[in-house]
């Protein structure tokens, strides 16, 4: 259990997420790996990355996913593993760090999604999260062949329903449902198992889940806000909200927007953690960071338009910016997207993190065992247990 009070000013610390997708955020990052680029799909490489993130006591790592191949024209990495299974593979050999795969709601079954994420939470003893994604592409739809791709608004409306059903399924077992009462021969107390009986617009799901309630109650829900429709869903359902901004003022306005939208849903805004995307090219000095970016851009043949805050410079400058944005209330933290995992992740962990720790705004060790502990988020009450009490 968390010892900190969520959102209280004395304990408020900066949160860091790191995107471990592909070889890094820059499409040409894999070309700096040399012959190791062929090992991009190896579990050992992923294991090393997570260990590094863990050394930096980052809150969580993210693995992107989609039902389509990355477009090949920019010479980037092509090929994806199922992100939920990547997270599961990393669960037994990691500690402290949250594991957050992207799982789409558009072409999947909430029943399957619910038990997969619950299981990652069980296997990691409470370190699972879920980055909710929708799919509006015709490619994805053609792979599943069930229907036309929905538009953005429809896809997020469906996502909202999916999150609701998934979290109901997480609650469909009360925490103490397993009783093993030898006297009466009952393994479970069936009164503590609940049908979710969802009959909605997009699906009907009976329940209960086959998987008992996960250690965190609900794995942490992450929503990336890139549309009004996504904002609406994030405000209602997300524990962590990812936003993109290029200036401190823009970030502060976005954070306020998210917080007030959450309040409109009757939520405490401090229960919503807003992370700003931060693309990072980190070097010993500004010139060498720029030189490395130039090299990557030269390889890719295009300049890097990240459409969000981009840092090209030293670890010191990055730490200063992070502290400034954090203290100004522009961000609860950042989702760092290292341009190249091989270089920038290590620079983040061994360069930036010690500076943030010295500034007193970042943890020196994991304070709890679960991802909710790291984020200072309470374990959600079970809605069905609450209804009876």
């Amino acid at each position, binding site marked *: 259990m968390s010892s900190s009070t969520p959102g209280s000013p004395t304990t408020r610390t900066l949160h860091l997420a790191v995107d471990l997708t592909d070889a890094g955020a820059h499409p040409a990052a894999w070309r700096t790996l040399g012959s190791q*680029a062929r090992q991009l799909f190896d579990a050992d490489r992923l294991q090393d990355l997570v260990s590094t993130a863990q050394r930096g006591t980052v809150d969580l790592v993210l693995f992107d996913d989609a039902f389509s*191949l990355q477009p090949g024209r920019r010479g980037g990495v092509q090929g994806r593993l199922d992100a939920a*299974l*990547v997270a599961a593979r990393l669960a037994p050999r990691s500690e402290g760090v949250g594991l957050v795969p992207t799982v789409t709601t558009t072409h999947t079954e909430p029943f399957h999604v619910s038990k997969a994420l619950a*299981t990652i939470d069980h296997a990691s003893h409470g370190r699972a999260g879920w980055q909710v994604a929708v799919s509006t592409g015709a490619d994805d739809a053609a*792979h*599943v062949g069930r229907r036309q791709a929905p538009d953005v608004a429809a896809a997020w409306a469906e996502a909202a329903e999916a999150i609701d059903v998934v979290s109901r399924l997480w609650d469909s077992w009360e925490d103490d449902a397993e009783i093993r009462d030898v006297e009466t*021969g*009952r393994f479970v107390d069936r009164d503590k198992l609940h049908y979710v009986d969802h009959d909605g617009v997009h699906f009907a*799901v009976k329940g209960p889940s086959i998987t008992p309630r996960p250690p965190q109650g609900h794995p942490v829900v992450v929503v990336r806000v890139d549309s009004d429709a996504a904002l609406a869903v994030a405000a209602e359902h997300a524990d962590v909200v990812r936003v993109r901004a290029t200036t401190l003022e823009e970030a502060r306005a976005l954070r306020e927007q998210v917080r007030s939208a959450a309040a409109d849903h009757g939520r405490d805004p401090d229960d919503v953690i807003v992370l700003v995307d931060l693309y990072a090219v980190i070097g010993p000095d500004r010139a060498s960071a720029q030189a490395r970016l130039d090299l990557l851009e030269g390889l890719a043949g295009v300049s890097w338009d990240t459409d969000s805050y981009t840092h090209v410079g030293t670890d010191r400058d990055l730490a200063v910016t992070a502290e400034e944005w954090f203290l100004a209330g522009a961000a609860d933290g950042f989702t760092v997207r290292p341009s190249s995992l091989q270089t920038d992740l290590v620079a983040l962990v061994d360069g930036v993190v010690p500076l943030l720790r010295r500034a007193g705004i970042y943890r020196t060790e994991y304070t709890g065992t679960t991802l909710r502990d790291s984020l200072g988020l309470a374990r959600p009450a079970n809605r069905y247990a609450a209804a009876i009490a």
Partner: protein
Amino acid sequence: MTTTPAPRPDGRPRKQIHLGAHFPGVNNTTVWSDPRSRSHIDFSSFEHLARRAEAARFDFFFLAEGLRLREHKGLIHDLDVVGRPDTLPVLAALAAVTDRLGLAGTINTTFNEPYELARQFATLDLLSGGRAAWNLVTSSDAFTGANFRRGGFLDYSERYERAAEIVDVARQLWDSWSDDAVDADAETGEFLREGAVQRVDHDGKHFDVHGTFTTPRGPQGHPVLFQAGDSGEGREFAAATADVVFSLHGSFEDGQVFYRDVKDRLAAYGRTEDSLKILPATTVVLGDTAEDAAEEAALIRRQQVSGPTAIAYLEQVWGRDLTAYDPEGPLPDVEPDVDNASLTRGKVRHVKDPGPVVAAWREKAAAHGWSIRDLVIEVTGRNQFVGTAQQVADDIDRYVQEDASDGFILVPHLTPEGLDPFFDQVVPLLQERGSFRTEYTGTTLRDHLGLELPGVGGSQAADLEGARA
């Protein structure tokens, strides 16, 4: 270390036994009331069984699956273990704590889409270094369908048709990437080798799948395919498609008949007998003497069939509430309600026609002086090897050498340590006889099972049409 196996008495080369370790989970053989029984959810339980199975050089670890909690008389059945984690994430996590052990998971073909399953299994195969296996089951009831978007949309008669099409599509997707597709040439900037990834265009009765697959081909090309289903169609599907049959025919004579039946179907598909392994489920009870083991086995059976469990089982057959009856007393004198056959849901029905079954049971119980509980213990008994380690090793080897099976999937009655005595005592004896490996000779599950690597483009649609004609 290699042992030269002695030939069989008839001069044929000695068969190597294949062994799988089943993580028990939800079934009516798991004894949860024993103080040694631990969590069936916590990962440490899965890890224990998998690590011990790997140390014993087992072929694979095996997980079953259910997609709706069982109900009895309209209420959640609460007498057996209830609840389990999700199959594929458990296997992916186990890949982190094992190196060679095959990882076999049961995944229903009715309530899943081929594109998603194909990428999940390709991912598991990559993340485990070639150890993935998929046990295809086809249950299609609307009861389970109530947990899914499309509900109970599949007719029982279409279950294998859909399964065959799923496998066909999955194979096309797995084969759409050549083994060396990831070139990652830093010099030229070419990540995927030109022409090494093909589009898939499938239009079928159950699925339309168009586009480019996302996931590189795993070390095994295709994961190993298991089949568990016992009807004629199920056996035909296995002959056309599967690498392993998970069967319930574990007794010697029944095993031999089933073995012949399934292996004789292979030729029609141009397959050799070695290309399909038949592995029945079985349990093992060991003792220092044969008497000890028999006593222990009887004790376990009584733990498996508690009084309430015995009554609930009879209720399934009778189609009536029988809670008024004493499980330690005689069989109910009321007649079964033949029209009320779906008293228990979410479980494979064993008794299809209660009338004659009940009559036969009454006769049997009267002749032996059995109580309700005694009878249920008797009629729900499954194949068991009971005896000293030496006797069990002899029996298992005889079953395999005399073609009652190619090995076994061992179902422990205790979680997670139930197979430890088998690993410690029986495996060394099988190794001494030269019937079971002492070291892994390969790295993939296909290697362990002696199965060939499927070539790209060599996949064939499971052609059930021809077989039915």
